[in-house]
């Protein structure tokens, strides 16, 4: 899957997105909605006001950092599917640090909260990393299991020991002191100064992965672990470190969500946001720059989908379109291969008719 980004990729991406919108249109028509009105409402939902643009940027930030966290893992050959849990853990730890240190200066609280989020989420990501490296336990399954464990644990903490005194909130921590909130950039929107921190993180990840020897060694570890091992790299350590950083990034996203827009911890701090970021990373073929750009695109879709409700269309059509893009992107190389095999067969059959002895080594097996 780790193919280069080139013109062919761009074309297939555009075609996939176009086809996905077509599939979406068919579903919309089938359920009695006009696709044109719906897509129009989507565009309007994303760009009609500055507030929405702010929301788009905030969501793009979440997607991009989550997607980059996934990129980082996949570069060394480990799939971090557990970002959702790491995000929640980071969020609740950061929130609770802010609540328990209430009264101290923001200069102390915010760095401590960030550190707490990084350490807790990083350690949480270390479990599957170590299990994968030391025991070859499939990390996809362990991270998925740990997601649910983290969600339940956070729910438990937010309902029990760290519950807010506010009776109307069933499971949430205390509200953060206004002094610790990240400044909003656009009034009314979720966008906060966290986006600058996110931009720095994104740049660092891109730079390390694409421009440094470390990044090259990571690539080698992922693509050819045997070779990397024989050339003297400590690939075990590399994989664990990448997993921990990946988890720490997810934890930071949780902290950004809490300090930037939610101002307290509740389970809806993340609604499977990591999984959406993961899918963006998949579509971007785990390339950092493409991940960031596609995050923007899918953030437009997601925020735009909120506008759909005003014309009476359920906004989940957004999830359908996004996943259909993945289906097309994932299938296209195999599809093209099948097509070319068929073409070659036809050509060979034509040549057969002429010479009677054309080689037919490429005949695809019958399914």
């Amino acid at each position, binding site marked *: *899957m780790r193919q280069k980004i080139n013109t062919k990729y761009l074309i297939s991406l555009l075609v996939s997105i176009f086809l996905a919108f077509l599939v979406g249109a068919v*579903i919309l028509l089938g*359920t*009695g909605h006009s696709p044109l009105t719906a897509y129009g409402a989507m565009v309007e939902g994303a760009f009609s006001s500055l507030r929405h643009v702010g929301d788009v940027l905030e969501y793009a930030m979440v997607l991009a950092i989550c997607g980059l966290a996934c990129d980082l893992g996949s570069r060394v050959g480990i*799939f971090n*599917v557990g970002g959702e849990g790491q995000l929640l853990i980071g969020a609740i730890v950061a929130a609770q640090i802010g609540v328990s240190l209430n009264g101290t200066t923001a200069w102390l609280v915010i760095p401590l909260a960030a550190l707490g989020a990084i350490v807790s989420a990083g350690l949480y990501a270390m479990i599957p990393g170590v*299990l994968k490296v030391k*025991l*070859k*336990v*499939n990390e*996809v*399954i*362990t991270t*998925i*299991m*740990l997601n*649910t*464990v983290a969600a*339940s*644990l956070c*729910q*438990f903490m937010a*309902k*029990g020991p760290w519950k807010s005194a506010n009776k109307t909130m069933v499971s949430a921590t205390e509200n953060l002191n206004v002094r610790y909130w990240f400044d909003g950039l656009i009034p009314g929107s979720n966008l906060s100064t966290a986006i600058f921190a996110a931009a720095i993180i994104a740049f660092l990840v891109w730079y390390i992965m694409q421009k440094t020897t470390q990044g090259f060694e990571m690539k080698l570890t992922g693509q050819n672990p045997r070779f990397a091992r024989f050339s003297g790299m400590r690939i075990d350590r590399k994989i664990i470190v990448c997993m921990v950083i990946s988890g720490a990034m997810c934890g930071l996203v949780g902290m950004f969500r809490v300090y930037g827009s939610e101002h307290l911890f509740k389970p809806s701090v993340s609604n*499977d946001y990591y*999984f*959406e970021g*993961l*899918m963006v990373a*998949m579509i971007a073929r785990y390339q950092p720059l493409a991940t960031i750009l596609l995050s923007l695109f899918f953030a437009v879709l997601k925020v735009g989908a909120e506008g759909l409700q005003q014309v009476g269309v*359920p906004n*989940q*059509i*957004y*999830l*359908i379109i*996004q*996943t*259909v893009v*993945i*289906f097309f992107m*994932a*299938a*296209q*190389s*195999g*599809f093209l*291969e*099948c097509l070319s095999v068929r073409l070659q067969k036809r050509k060979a059959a034509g040549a057969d008719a002429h010479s009677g002895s054309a080689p037919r080594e490429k005949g695809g*097996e*019958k*399914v």
Partner: protein
Amino acid sequence: MSEFEKIMSSIFSYGTLQQMLRSATPVALAAIGGSMTEHAGIMNIGMDGMILMGAFFGVLGSFLFHTALAGVGMAIVMGVLVGLFFALLVVRYKSDEFIIGCALNTFAIGLTSYLSRSYFGTSGTKGNPALPMLRLAFLDKIPVLRIFNNQSLFVYLTWIIVIAAWIFVYKTPYGFWLRASGEKPDTLRTAGISPKRMKWIASILCGVLCALAGAHLSLGQLSGTFAENMSNSRGFIAFACVIFAAANPAKAYIAALMFGFFEAIGLRLQGYVSSDLTNTIPYIITIVMMVWVVVRKQAKKRAAKQET
């Protein structure tokens, strides 16, 4: 009676065992389906989405045709379609099964929530025609067999499916080819049987069994209810069962029973421990199980090496 005894007696009560059977059944059905794909060498993490689709289309069929049987039929048809779709992408077009599985899960959430809002106007529905339960008065009087009373028909159907699946995998030529298609596809090809065809069959079987699991969840266990994302990671638990059981359908059923047991305990102990905490037990056990499986395999390998 001391507090401890009270807790113990509530854990090992008929109610718990009854609940265990009830919650184990959907997981077991999906796990049997997952065993098929696992044998065919496909890592199927899309089972959660398959269950969710089965759950939704089961309720939709029951809603549209006013009978639960139509719901089950519709779920099965959708299961076949999803299985075909999965095989088309993974087997035919050789896409990464992990990506397709992940996307399938999200796709299922999107599609079922969208359609639920379109058909029912809300995010869920309840009170649709449900599957009948087995209610036999005399069973209640027999001590142990009591737990089998008041269960959805699917609970018993699952037993038949477990046995049938076990015979299919281990005692028929098809099962032999199925296992070979995952382990030694080239050998199978030499024998003149297409491994790809076996993979297609496995995907379709998995789709159908997961759809049945979903239909049981919505039409049997929750008597005609659909709620958004109601599969609730059961597909992943089923996947864990598959791994734990090394894709043996009978062992997968036992693993599913164990998961059902812990879920049931969580419900019983709500007064003592938060159910949020007991809910984590099956997931932690899965991880421990996987570590255990690996460690044991390594120990065996080491022992074999020492012998030679």
